[in-house]
């Protein structure tokens, strides 16, 4: 009877319930291991690699293979420096992990160190050389603010995306800035999986099946790395930013914010000292100045004031007499040229950057009309740009002041707004967009950095037209031509003389301090006598070639002194480089984009 009981129980377990228990046994036995996909590369419009994956030479320790891990570390210390903190971390990891699990001991080894470890392996019991993948930015600082960087996974990232198994892989990196952040999901790819048989302690017995997953997509940017390198070199000693755009498509050819940082260092975590040096640097290397640096546009704004005036029906031929002073209410407004410009029409006012003329225009047009045009031309807004952290800036109006300050508008504020001072704040990217929209005849292009994703060209819907008469824009364009190419123009000295490459620009100097009455009487101090942080910001916007505009450029040198003296020459050099590269660019535009992802890294897996 008792044996019948045993038999029937066995029947129940082994015959009736066998499917259920077989499945449970399989779950016990089979473990899925994720295989990290290869992160997609980032390349410029010609396929120059801007971000790729580099082999990371490292050493791992398998503690069950050494009688004494401490002794092995002592011996390793002769090849690689092991600080007491690192040693503590290693010993803690070893204590925590199962004895057969490899623990990372040293990473990012040089080839020499790696070779030495290989040669000395018999003496380094339990130590194994190993090759992993790590993100690599060959251009380092030159693209730090565009391509961005990746960092190890932090708790925040896990909280944001708790279901992504990849984040739990040791050594996995996530994009934290720039293109790396914007396209993180596309660059990341899909995890592969390897099904392995494990024993009760988790030791792998054998591999049952493997699926290598899908590498991340390659991102082709609109940048031209040759121009980028040149621009970075040209601005390397300044705290500056520059944006070069195609005026018809919005493609960003070059995007510079200097100084910058080394994105490679975020891979492993920036050193505390090095990071503190970045934080303490007055040139603010961590700030992405092209989108997050806000400056009064200064005289570069005069084009907008002009368009607003033309829209209001003001005759551009009509002249205003500049005596260097403009009395309004109980206040006297000054022109930058103390002795005055005499009688100037719109063309001459732009060319000479006469302040009095634009005070007068602004007064007649009114702030709200100016603000509307400024908004139409891209100021005071963000563009959903691929680089995160755009700032809106400020385009002041009566409503804005009421909302932001709770105060009424003063007429005097309209006057200084007319010359791009006062509440106005713009980013270099916005200034580039404004210039592009002036140069392209009023098409509301938006800046973009992406040309293709995973081999597919990014299609942009045609930009809408701004409600302006192209004739008005022509007047402003001519004025800017005068600035650069007519003797007496504020940037005449910084013109391009090569035929066919001529640019048309507008200088700007944004005051960062208040000039007192006493100082003005005694003569306004020259910028180069002031300490750096009190000097004016130097701005320059331009488009080229004049005959058939193709590119717009904006450039801001923080505390550079004056637009004509500091910004215009640098802008001229960069624009010339852009135009010289134009031939190459047009050839490439006719070829389909290639997906280069993974081609030279197939070996890297495993």
């Amino acid at each position: 009877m008792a044996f019948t009981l045993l038999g029937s129980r066995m029947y129940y377990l082994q015959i009736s319930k066998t499917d259920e228990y077989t499945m449970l046994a399989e779950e016990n036995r089979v473990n899925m291991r994720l295989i990290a996909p290869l992160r997609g590369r980032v390349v410029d419009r010609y396929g120059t690699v801007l971000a790729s994956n580099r082999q990371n030479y490292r050493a791992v320790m398998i503690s069950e293979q050494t009688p004494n891990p401490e002794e092995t570390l002592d011996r390793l210390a002769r090849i690689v420096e092991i600080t007491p903190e690192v040693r503590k971390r290693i010993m803690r990891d070893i204590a925590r992990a199962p004895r057969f699990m490899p623990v990372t001991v040293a990473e990012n080894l040089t080839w020499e160190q790696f070779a030495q470890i290989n040669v000395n392996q018999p003496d380094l019991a339990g130590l194994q050389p190993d090759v992993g993948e790590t993100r690599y930015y060959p251009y380092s600082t030159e693209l730090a603010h565009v391509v961005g960087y990746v960092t190890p996974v932090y708790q925040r990232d896990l909280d944001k995306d708790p279901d992504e198994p990849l984040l739990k892989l040791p050594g996995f990196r996530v994009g934290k800035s720039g293109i790396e952040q914007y396209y993180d999901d596309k660059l990341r790819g899909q995890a592969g999986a390897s099904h392995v048989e494990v024993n009760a302690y988790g030791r792998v017995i054998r591999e049952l099946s493997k699926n290598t997953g899908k590498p991340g997509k390659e991102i082709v940017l609109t940048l031209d790395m040759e121009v980028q390198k040149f621009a970075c070199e040209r601005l390397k000693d300044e705290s500056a930013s520059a944006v070069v755009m195609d005026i018809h498509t919005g493609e960003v050819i070059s995007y510079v914010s200097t100084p910058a940082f080394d994105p490679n260092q975020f891979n492993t975590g920036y050193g505390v000292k090095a990071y503190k040096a970045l934080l303490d640097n007055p040139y603010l290397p961590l700030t992405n100045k092209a989108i997050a640096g806000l400056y009064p546009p200064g005289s570069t704004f005069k084009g907008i004031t002009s368009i607003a005036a033309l829209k209001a029906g003001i005759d551009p031929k009509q002249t205003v007499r500049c005596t260097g002073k403009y009395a309004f209410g109980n206040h006297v407004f000054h022109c930058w040229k103390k002795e005055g410009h005499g009688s100037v029409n719109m063309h001459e006012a732009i060319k000479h950057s006469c302040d009095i003329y634009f005070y007068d225009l602004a007064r007649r047009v009114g702030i709200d009309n100016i603000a509307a045009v400024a908004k139409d031309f891209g100021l005071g807004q963000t563009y959903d740009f691929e680089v995160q952290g755009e700032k809106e800036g400020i385009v002041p109006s009566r409503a804005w002041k009421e909302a932001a300050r709770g105060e009424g508008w003063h007429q005097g504020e309209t006057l200084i707004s007319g010359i791009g001072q006062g509440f106005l704040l713009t980013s270099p990217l916005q200034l580039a967009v404004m210039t592009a929209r002036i140069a392209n005849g009023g098409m509301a292009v938006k800046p973009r950095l992406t040309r293709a994703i995973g081999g597919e060209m990014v299609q942009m819907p045609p930009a809408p037209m701004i409600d302006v008469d192209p004739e008005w824009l022509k007047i402003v364009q001519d004025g800017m031509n005068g600035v650069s190419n007519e003797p007496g123009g504020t940037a005449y000295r910084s013109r391009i003389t090569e035929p066919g490459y001529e640019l048309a620009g507008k200088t700007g100097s944004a005051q960062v301090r208040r000039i007192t009455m006493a100082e003005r009487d005694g003569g306004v101090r020259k910028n180069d006598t002031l300490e750096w942080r009190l000097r004016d910001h130097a701005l320059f916007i331009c488009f080229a070639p004049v005959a058939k505009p193709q590119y717009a450029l904006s450039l801001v040198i923080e505390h550079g002194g004056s637009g004509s003296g500091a910004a215009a020459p640098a802008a001229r050099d960069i624009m010339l480089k852009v135009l010289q590269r134009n031939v190459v660019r047009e050839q490439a535009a006719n070829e389909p984009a290639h997906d280069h992802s993974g081609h030279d890294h197939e070996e890297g897996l495993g």
Partner: protein
Amino acid sequence: MFDLTRFTGRDMKISEKLVEFNWGFLLLITAIASIGFAMLYSVADGSFSPWASRQMIRFAAGVGIMIFVAMIDIRFWMSVAYPLYGIALALVTAVDIVGFKGMGAQRWLDLGFIQLQPSEVMKVALLLALARYFHGLALEDVSRIRNLIVPLLMVVVPVGLVVEQPDLGTGILLTISGGTIFFAAGLAWRYFIISGLAVLGAIPIIWERLHDYQRNRVFTFLDPERDPLGAGYHILQSKIALGSGGLFGKGFMEGTQAQLNFLPEKQTDFIFTMLGEEMGFAGAMFLLFLYALTLTFAINVSLQCRNQFGRLLSLGIAVSFFFYVFINAAMVMGLLPVVGVPMPLVSYGGTAMLSLMFAFGLLMSCYIHRNVEVTRGSSAFS
């Protein structure tokens, strides 16, 4: 007094005894033990070391002991029943005293040359002593209270010592074995009912005295999924192993649960699970069938014995053997809480194997000397 020639020479010659020896029975238990060897070979990933080879040597030694014990007259065994019991009791007590200093379960006594598990010795000695005691009582005297005090003490004292070690499984087995002899001797039913009630009443007291791990086993038995990675792990993995074995099993040395170490204690307490996983329902049933044959034989011996001592002893051995098998099998199937009871002849273990073979020797002695007259009241040789 213990002159062996007096018993072996007077009634039967050795050669006669060897003819009487039931070689079919030996073949039967060899078959069972061989299944154990195969499983131990498989556990070691296809190697005779460390378990299979040693188990085979022990079994061979056990067969020698069994034949030797079987050759000796049943009356001699009756005469040494009390002294043996005394020695076993002393050993069990010694373990408790020595073990007092040790940690956790102390069941082993290191005699210098052999690691002895005295509770295993006690299993045989208790059967002998009780059989001898009841042998001297007429059936109508068995149920008298004053006649029950001594045998009750003979059971309770070692059980108490063994449980104290702590070894609950052996304690239960000793109680059951003792109870069997009481039953076979013809103790009135009412005593079993009374003691059953007494046990129920004692449960709260026993519960108080149980170690945490023992209480956990009971909890786990009641709800194995309660703590699948902790206390419930053994029984859950065992059921998975059995269930995934199916009708014909995963094949010799192919049991993933056992080979990948998900199954705990697979060379000892859970060896039946491993058989079920690798050889399936068919293999497990075949082993149970062999056990049933063994039990049938032992009960037959008891029925054929013409003396009371042999009847009681062989029935005690038969029923104890049955409970070993039943408790172990029921445990791994999740029908009983996990108690440390090995599968006889199959599980790896030295003392258990030798004491079982000794008991089978006694059983065979009972069988060979089944027609020997043994006077009631006192031993013929005392």
